[in-house]
């Protein structure tokens, strides 16, 4: 499948933004994130500090690779997202619903894990894989393309923020 470079760049940019924001957040609140990893109770206790330090580095590296146009970047992002989806799904299955998801904005809103996060990660991973597997059409990009790509990335980030802000409220209204 061949896709337009506009789409390819916009999706790559959006994923790179998501991953770098996530990495920055995890590096800033390293101790909170280590606690979150521990609470997932998937890794043996001895491996937790190393994993907590490694994950944001992998995220940042994947973001950088994606921006450089290397398909390994998108594959790494898809892998990370699927890993998170599996970790969340395992804990939901165990009945640990009230652990901090450790996602972007973890700790701040104390967002507990839920099934929609698994669905979201699967959807994102599928998108990343689809873009990674597609060839990019050879179309010269003009300045208006670049403007559009930039704006599309910002708009996607804002929409992500909107959904994140709206979800706890939807849950609150339901309960």
């Amino acid at each position, binding site marked *: 499948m061949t896709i337009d470079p506009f789409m390819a760049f916009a999706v790559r940019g959006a994923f790179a933004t998501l991953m770098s924001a996530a990495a920055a957040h995890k590096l800033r609140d390293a101790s909170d994130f280590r606690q979150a990893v521990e609470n997932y109770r998937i890794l043996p206790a001895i491996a937790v500090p190393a994993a907590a330090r490694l994950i944001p580095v992998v995220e940042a590296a994947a973001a950088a690779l994606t921006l450089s146009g290397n398909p390994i970047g998108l594959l790494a992002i898809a892998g990370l997202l699927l890993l998170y989806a599996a970790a969340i799904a395992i804990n939901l299955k165990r009945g640990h619903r009230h652990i901090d998801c450790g996602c972007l904005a973890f700790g701040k809103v104390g967002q507990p894990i839920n099934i929609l996060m698994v669905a979201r990660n699967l959807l994102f991973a599928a998108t990343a894989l689809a873009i990674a597997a597609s060839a990019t059409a050879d179309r010269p990009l003009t300045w208006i393309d670049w403007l559009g790509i930039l704006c599309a990335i910002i708009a996607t980030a*804002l929409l992500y923020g909107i959904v994140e*802000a709206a979800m706890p409220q939807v849950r609150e209204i339901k309960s």
Partner: protein
Amino acid sequence: MIAALSIAIIVQWVLLLALCTAVLLLFRQVGMLHERLGPVGALTLPGGVAIGDHAPRFDLAAVNGGVVKLGGQDIGGQDTLLFFLSPRCPMCKSLIPIVKSIARDESATLRVVLASDGDEGLQRKMISSERLEAFPLVLSTELGMAYAVSKLPYAVLIKADGHVAAKGLINNREHLESLFEARRSGVASLQEYLERGRAPLKPVQQRTVA
């Protein structure tokens, strides 16, 4: 043509980003509002029959005839909304349509009893002017004293098994609905709701949960 399209695209991107930002700010604002606004409910005045206690037994003659039994197991398995009002209270009149609408909505499981005291002539006038013929009206000072009703309009929700589910001063629809919410959730007051996660404090005034 190209210039026109370019300008149109730029303007649309700018507007789209502005719109997204506005929605994001709006949701954050709503989130903060949720945090600030706790549940709001009817003011539970101190004294009288406590929530969770057995409602005292009363056999009272209704103004329109018949006997109204209050307290104890309800024969029809219905809950009872005891609504205290007075012909001299303008707020009570404004709440009558709300009481009627709740009585209609919950007609299968709810019996509405109006309670007042004083001049029977005025009460009869109120019944006809406010079209309250469908509800029994009892006149009893003892009933008001049993529930320590010091301000009107006041309502008490008694469960079919004879326990008091909720009570409080009613000034609007939300207050009245909060009594039903208290019955549903089993949380008698806002204080009780808040104290579930905190050290208990001794409240002077309690509000039902809305």
